[in-house]
């Protein structure tokens, strides 16, 4: 095996995958072209729009700026991995649908992932904290208010769930 090509192992949306990748192959191309998971979008390709957001070991990163070989061994979650294995939607997905947070849908995969990441680390964020957290993801359609509303609605949901289990 030369050092231009590498066998890497990833867990993508809970499924173990083994791939042969070139040293300079980008994670976004592996996800979209090699694995056929086109939920992750290719926007600017230069790290400025965050349409290519994926979770690597729980952390949102830019797929267009990450070499696939550098995340060997990682757990990757893409938009397709947000719903439960039985297909039922995650509360954040329902919230996006119910709050006019989706128009063309291009920013949505990235927005959903960073929203999930926010709610996991901070279940009751303020509006400022929400806006701060999604700042890196560009949306050209909605004006962001629907997205913020959707995320806010999940914080109440979680609170209600926690209170109901006391």
């Amino acid at each position, binding site marked *: 095996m*030369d*050092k*231009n090509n*590498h066998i890497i192992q990833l867990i993508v949306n809970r499924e173990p995958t083994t791939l042969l990748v*070139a*040293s*300079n192959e*980008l994670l976004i191309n592996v996800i979209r072209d090699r694995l056929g998971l086109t939920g992750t979008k290719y926007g600017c*390709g*230069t*790290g*400025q729009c*965050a349409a290519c*957001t994926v979770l*690597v070991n729980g*952390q*949102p*990163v*830019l797929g*267009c*700026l*990450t*070499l696939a*070989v*550098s995340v*060997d061994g990682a757990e990757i979650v893409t938009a397709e991995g947000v719903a439960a294995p039985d297909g039922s939607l995650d509360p954040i997905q329902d919230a996006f649908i119910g709050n006019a947070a989706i128009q063309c849908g291009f920013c949505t995969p990235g927005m959903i992932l*960073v929203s999930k990441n926010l709610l996991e680390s901070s279940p009751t964020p303020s509006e400022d904290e929400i806006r701060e*957290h999604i*700042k*890196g*993801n560009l949306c050209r359609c909605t004006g962001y208010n629907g997205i913020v509303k959707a995320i806010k609605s999940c914080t109440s949901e979680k609170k209600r769930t926690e209170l109901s289990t006391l």
Partner: protein
Amino acid sequence: MNHKEYFKPNNTQELGQLVKEFGSKVTFIAGGTDLIPQMRDEVKSPEVFIDISEIDELLSIVEEDDVISIGAATKISEVTSSFILITHCPILVSAAEQLGNILTRNRATIGGNIANASPCSDTAPPLLTLNASLVIRDIKGEVKTQSINDFFLSYKKTALQQGELITQILIPKKSEKQCGSFVKIGQRNSAAISVVSMAMMLDMDSGHCRQAKIAMGGMAPIPIRALKTEQLLKNNTINEALIESSAHHLAQEFLPISDIRGSEEYRRHLTAVLFKRSINNSLKQQGE
């Protein structure tokens, strides 16, 4: 992008062997958030990547008696959440919080930001005001320390020779209480490349400025200290008149370029605005 080789050493021994074998062709990579765009633009064309992001010796933030040591491969997201840095170098944390967006901060590293040496680097101005030094590993594996004040030579050119690597950033601990601020202005409110940025550290004795350190991004080919304006503040009482005249002087201290992000005139205007903003932010910390 053409054929490349990639290695990811686990420790400095493995790193040493790789540098020995490939020295003249090596490009170090950690987060890749600057390098990959540069490769796409064909500004850089690495032949051999050495990924340093998992070398233990480059990963910790340690507080010692006189100095804070930050591993060069420390992610910007780790800088923002480090208790040691929040306590001892809040200006660096503030700059790190304003760097890129959460996605870049989860990959980008402090060493990478310094070595990339953009004139708009967000970590460089604070590090200049903190009198930081860089621990550099040379191609033979020997280690030297260099003040960050001597590190940036000209546009995107640093004192690093081919095959050399920043391993740690050292920040001297100060016994006197200082106040400071980092502000930047860009064309968007996240992932913004600074049009102008300013780091300021003040050593105050109730209204009297004993010493000032001011460093700017976006105003010169390199991140740079405003030595002349620092002298205007030194050993003076800070009042409205001094703030006004210093802001004016600072706006004239450098010769910034005009580019798509801002004209020379606009940058000078921003400099005066940021100076007043910074100094007021800094003094507020004191309860002035």
